[in-house]
C-alpha cells in the first residue's frame, strides 16, 4: 500500500474503468445482469438500501450493476464524479431539466441545436411553464445578453448539430457562474476523447450515447455526467438543497455533498420517469467505449479528408467542417478540440432542394438514414426529410439551406466514400453519373 496510486491514461480507462473481473466467476467481460430485482440479504439491508444509507441494488428501474459499470466508465472518461444513464439522450436531457427546473425558471439555450432537442425544450417549456431564451452562441455577448435573474441553466452542444458551431465553453461557463447557474453541455458530437467540457468549466455533461459511444449504431441510450463542482446550496435550487417531499424530507445536497444531484436524479427522477437503460444495451455501450479512442481517430481523419475533397468539387457551394483552415471556428477547435472536431458536418449543394434529392438517390454506399456517429457513413438531406414541411424561408431561419446535406463519416476507406459522393454530385448537377 506504499505505492503511489497511478493516474492511468485515457485508453487504459476506456477499457477498464467501471469494470473489475467478476469476483464470483472470474468473468472478464462485464456480466449482463438481466434481472428486474435483487434479493435482499436481510430486512436491515433492505431498509438501508431504500433509505440510501448503503449502496445496494434494489430494482433495475433505479440501478443495475451492468448499467452501473457503463455509468462509472463514462463518468471516469469525462472527469465527473458519477453518471446516471437513461434509455435515450432525450430522456437524459428531459430528466436532468426536470430535476433542475421549477415553474417560472428560465433556461438560456444555444439556437444552434439538434432539432429534437429544440422540439423537446419547446414542449417542456409549454408544459412546465419554463421560459426559454435562445442564444446566438457565435456572438461573444450572446450568453450575457440572454441571462436574467430567473436563468437557472445554460445549455449548448460542444459541436452543434448540424451547423458545426463550436461552443466557447470557458466563456459560457463564466457567464453561467456569474448568475449562479450551471452550464450543461451536450458532448455527443465530441465524445470525451475529443473534448472534456467539465475540464473547461462546464458543470454537467449530457450524451446521446446512441452515437459515437455505442459506435456501431446498435443502441439507443443517454446519460448525465456531473462534475460535482456546482454549489446547489447557493439559494437558487431548492429542489436539491431543501428537504425533498418526494424522498421523505431528505436534503440531497447537504446529505450527499458532491453526489447530491446524481442521487436525486437516480432515486427520484429516474425512479419516477422510468426511462431506464436496459442491461444489455449498457453492455453494448461498454464494448463501444473500449474502442472509442481508436474509432474517433479514424472518424476524424476520414471526415477531414472528405470535407477537404468536397471543397474543391463542382456543384458544392459551401463546406461547414469546423476544423477546415478557413472555418470561423478554427480558433475554438484549436483550443477545445485539438485532436479533431468529430465526423459530422454539413455542406450546401448549389442545386437546392431538387439537387439534394437527386444527390441522395444516386448514392449507393452511403446510407440515407437519420442517425450519426456510426461506423457506417450516413447521409441526410434535411430539406427533403426532417425539415420537409418548411418553406425555403423557414428552412433558412432554422440554419438549414434547401441544398444542405449532413454527413456522418464512418470508418470505410476514404477513396470509396469519395467515389460514391462524386456520383451523387454528378446527379445533383444533372450530369451523367460515372459508372
Amino acid at each position, binding site marked *: *500500500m*506504499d505505492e*503511489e*496510486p*497511478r493516474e*492511468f491514461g485515457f485508453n*487504459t*480507462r476506456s477499457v*477498464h*474503468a*467501471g469494470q*473489475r*473481473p467478476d*469476483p464470483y466467476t*472470474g468473468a472478464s467481460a462485464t456480466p449482463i445482469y438481466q434481472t428486474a430485482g435483487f434479493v435482499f440479504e436481510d430486512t436491515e439491508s433492505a431498509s*438501508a438500501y431504500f*433509505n*440510501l*444509507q*448503503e*449502496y*445496494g*441494488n434494489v430494482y433495475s428501474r433505479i*440501478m443495475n*450493476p451492468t*448499467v*452501473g*459499470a457503463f*455509468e*462509472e466508465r463514462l*463518468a*471516469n472518461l469525462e*472527469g*465527473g*464524479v*458519477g*453518471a*446516471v*444513464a437513461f434509455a435515450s439522450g432525450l430522456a437524459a436531457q428531459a430528466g436532468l431539466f426536470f430535476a433542475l427546473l421549477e415553474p417560472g425558471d428560465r433556461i438560456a439555450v444555444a439556437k444552434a441545436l439538434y432539432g429534437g432537442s429544440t422540439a423537446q425544450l419547446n414542449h417542456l417549456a409549454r408544459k412546465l411553464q419554463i421560459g426559454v431564451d435562445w442564444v446566438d452562441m457565435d456572438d461573444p455577448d450572446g450568453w450575457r445578453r440572454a441571462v436574467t435573474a430567473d436563468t437557472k441553466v445554460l445549455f449548448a452542444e460542444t459541436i452543434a448539430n448540424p451547423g458545426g458551431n463550436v461552443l466557447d465553453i*470557458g466563456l459560457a461557463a463564466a457567464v453561467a457562474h456569474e448568475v449562479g447557474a450551471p452550464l450543461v453541455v451536450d458532448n455527443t458530437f465530441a465524445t470525451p476523447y475529443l473534448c472534456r467540457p*467539465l*475540464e*473547461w*468549466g462546464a458543470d454537467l455533461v449530457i450524451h446521446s450515447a446512441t452515437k459515437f459511444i455505442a459506435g456501431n449504431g446498435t443502441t439507443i441510450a443517454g446519460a448525465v455526467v456531473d*462534475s460535482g*463542482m456546482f454549489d446547489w446550496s447557493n439559494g437558487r435550487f431548492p429542489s436539491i438543497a431543501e*428537504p425533498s417531499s418526494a424522498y*421523505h*424530507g*431528505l*436534503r440531497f445536497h*447537504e*446529505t*450527499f*455533498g*458532491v*453526489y447530491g444531484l*446524481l442521487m436525486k436524479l*437516480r432515486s427520484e427522477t429516474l425512479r419516477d420517469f422510468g426511462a431506464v437503460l436496459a442491461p444489455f444495451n449498457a453492455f453494448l455501450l461498454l464494448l463501444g467505449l473500449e474502442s472509442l479512442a481508436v474509432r474517433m481517430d479514424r472518424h476524424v481523419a476520414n471526415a477531414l479528408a472528405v470535407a477537404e475533397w468536397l471543397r474543391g468539387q463542382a456543384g458544392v457551394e459551401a463546406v461547414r467542417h469546423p476544423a477546415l483552415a478557413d472555418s470561423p471556428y478554427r480558433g475554438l477547435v484549436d483550443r477545445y478540440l485539438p485532436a479533431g472536431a468529430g465526423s459530422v458536418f454539413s455542406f450546401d449543394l448549389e442545386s437546392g432542394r431538387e439537387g439534394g434529392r437527386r444527390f441522395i438517390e444516386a448514392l449507393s454506399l452511403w446510407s440515407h438514414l437519420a442517425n450519426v456517429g456510426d461506423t457506417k457513413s450516413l447521409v441526410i438531406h434535411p430539406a427533403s426529410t426532417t425539415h420537409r414541411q418548411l418553406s425555403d424561408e423557414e428552412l433558412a431561419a432554422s440554419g438549414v439551406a434547401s441544398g444542405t446535406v449532413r454527413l456522418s463519416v464512418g470508418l470505410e476507406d476514404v477513396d470509396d466514400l469519395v467515389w460514391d459522393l462524386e456520383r451523387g454530385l454528378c446527379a445533383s448537377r444533372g450530369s451523367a453519373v460515372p459508372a
Partner: protein
Amino acid sequence: MRVTRLGRPGMNEFQDRRAIQEIVLKARTVAIVGLSASELRASNFVGYYLQRHGYRVVPVNPNEEHVLGEQVYPSLRDVPEHIDVVDVFRDPAAVPEIARAAVAVGADALWLQFGVVSSEGARIAQEGGLEVVMDRCLKVEHAKLLGRMHWLGFDTGVIAGARS
C-alpha cells in the same frame, strides 16, 4: 483556462489518495464529532454506514445521550478509549478547538467532512502529528475502495484487470 477538478484550491495537500487509503484500511475506532440523532443528516448516514462495515463508532455531541445504539460523549476529551480517526461534522469555526482536543487525546488522524474547511485546524492537527484529510467524506472514500459505490454509477477511480 482549464479548471482543476481535484478539489478546492490549496487543498490537495489534505486529499492525498495514499493517506486516505491508509486511514480507511487501518482505522477501527472512529469518533464522530457532531453525530446527529436525525436519520436525515449526513453525519447519521456516515455513522450508520461505518457501523455496518465493522468500524466502532463513538459519537461526540453535547446535545445527545445515545445515537446509533452508542453512548454519546460531550467532548473528545471525555472518550475513555483510543480513537483512530476524529471525523468532524461541525462548523469550520469549531475545528481548531476540536483539532487541539484530537492532539491531546492522541488520535491518529483528523478527518474533516465535505465543506468542513479549516486551514488553522488542519495545521494544528498536523503539527500535533496527526494525518489530516479535509473536504472529503469518510463513507465515500470507504465505498470507493472497498464498497459498492460503483453499482450506483459513481466513479471510484479503481482500475484493475487482475482478479481481486
